[in-house]
């Protein structure tokens, strides 16, 4: 099923590594996020911006996958930001505490300015 995979394009924006994440965030996203993170980490990324699609469906499996990235990046002293989050998922991310480990930014441009 097409909705069980993600496409993640990585792009360097100055000091920031942008993950352009296409697709929903569910338990199926875990290997896609993990692989992208491993790549970025090997390339020495210090600041990572996760861009989600505004209309993405995110469930607890996707939240667990995100938290795994946050945990690894904390261990590796990397700074993580998230953008493209709908109002509903801003609320959800705050409820589960994701916002204590990653800032949510309104736009990519805004994120890059703040994170640089």
């Amino acid at each position, binding site marked *: 099923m097409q909705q069980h995979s993600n496409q993640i394009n990585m792009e360097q924006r100055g000091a920031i590594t942008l993950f352009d994440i296409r697709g929903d965030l569910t338990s199926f996203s875990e290997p896609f996020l993990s692989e992208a993170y491993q790549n970025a980490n090997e390339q020495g990324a210090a600041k990572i911006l996760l861009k989600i699609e505004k209309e993405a469906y995110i469930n607890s499996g996707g939240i667990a996958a995100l*938290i795994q990235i946050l945990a690894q990046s904390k261990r590796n002293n990397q700074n993580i930001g998230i953008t493209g989050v709908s109002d509903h998922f801003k609320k959800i991310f705050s409820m589960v*505490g994701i916002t*204590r480990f990653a800032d949510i930014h309104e736009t990519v441009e805004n994120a890059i300015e703040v994170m640089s």
Partner: protein
Amino acid sequence: MSDKTIEVNLANQLGYERVAMACSASFARMMGLPPERIEDLKTMVSEAAINAMEHGNKGRSDARVTVSLNCRDNVINVAVMDEGDGIKEFPPKPDIEKIIEDLESPIGFGLFLISQLADQVEFNEVTDIGHVVKMAIKMDS
């Protein structure tokens, strides 16, 4: 079944919860639930349906999940039914600090989100045809 109830019956396969979400959203929109609460309802239904598939029905491909919805006295009632025997042990509220430090596994988010988003929840109604999670959202909350 009440004459204004709708019911959707799903294959026990991850991904199919989307169909229940779409159904619930459409029903709630018809009843006039505000858009931000429709998003809450979708997440509640999604998490309860995934739990029904994974935990209640233990991933069995021949099992079914049933989601029913109605609207009475300005309350949208949702019931998610699986063929299991209920929640044996409730995990503690997930602690993200501990999960990040690898001191806890990242579980318990499903039930946590359901409890946070619903105006009312009842777990563990077990009948001879299965286990039901009942959730409610007030129209004017």
